[in-house]
């Protein structure tokens, strides 16, 4: 049991680390947002699953479940809000090769 927990804990730290690295490396807001929010979600969820397995059925794991559900509801909304504000604020998405006619297609 504790072995599974360790695996999940390792996964969680791993994803958190790579989320941060991605956020620092990527070129524009949208890609940074992708890296950060996804990795954060995955890391937090794997942490919660690991802890719930570790603790079994107890009041702590029920509370962790509630936190997880709340987080699952709010996290995509927050990242959507940031992305939308950037999109409407006029920040163009970064692309590897940008041609003139593609700009109008993106908007």
């Amino acid at each position, binding site marked *: 049991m504790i072995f599974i927990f360790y695996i999940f804990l390792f996964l969680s730290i791993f994803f958190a680390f790579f989320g941060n690295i991605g956020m620092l490396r990527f070129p524009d807001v949208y890609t940074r947002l992708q890296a950060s929010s996804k990795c954060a979600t995955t890391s937090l969820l794997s942490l919660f699953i690991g802890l719930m397995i570790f603790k079994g059925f107890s009041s702590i794991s029920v509370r962790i479940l509630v936190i997880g559900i709340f987080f699952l509801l709010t996290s995509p*909304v927050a990242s959507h809000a940031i992305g939308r504000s950037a999109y409407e604020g006029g920040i163009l998405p970064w692309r590897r090769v940008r041609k003139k006619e593609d700009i109008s297609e993106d908007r």
Partner: protein
Amino acid sequence: MERSQIVTMVSRKLVPFILLFGLYLISYGHLSPGGGFQGGVVLASGILLLFLSHGFTLVQRSFPERHLNLTELVMVLLFLLLGLAGLLLGKSFLSNILLLGEAGEIPSAGFILLLNMIIGLKVGAGITLICFYLFRS
């Protein structure tokens, strides 16, 4: 500027739960972290989330400003009257006038639960009103 459908939808479904969570913080204030003030702020945050996602008019429909004002004032008066009731019963100001239950249960401090409820509603209404004032003035 139109509103994002996702934000409005999620906040619509989430706000009742946030309000309930604020009430939970208030009513379990003496058994777990939280209490009148913290719960009140969470209540206010729930209403403010509604205000941010749906705009001023819809908040006015569910939580009219007049009612919030009235809640705030009446709660203070209730608090003071509860305190004075202790004086009238021959004890000191704000002394417990309800019976004590067993320790570890919610009604263990029935009086404190009541006071926390009053403070929480007052704080929630007050902070919401401050934000509305800054929005309109």
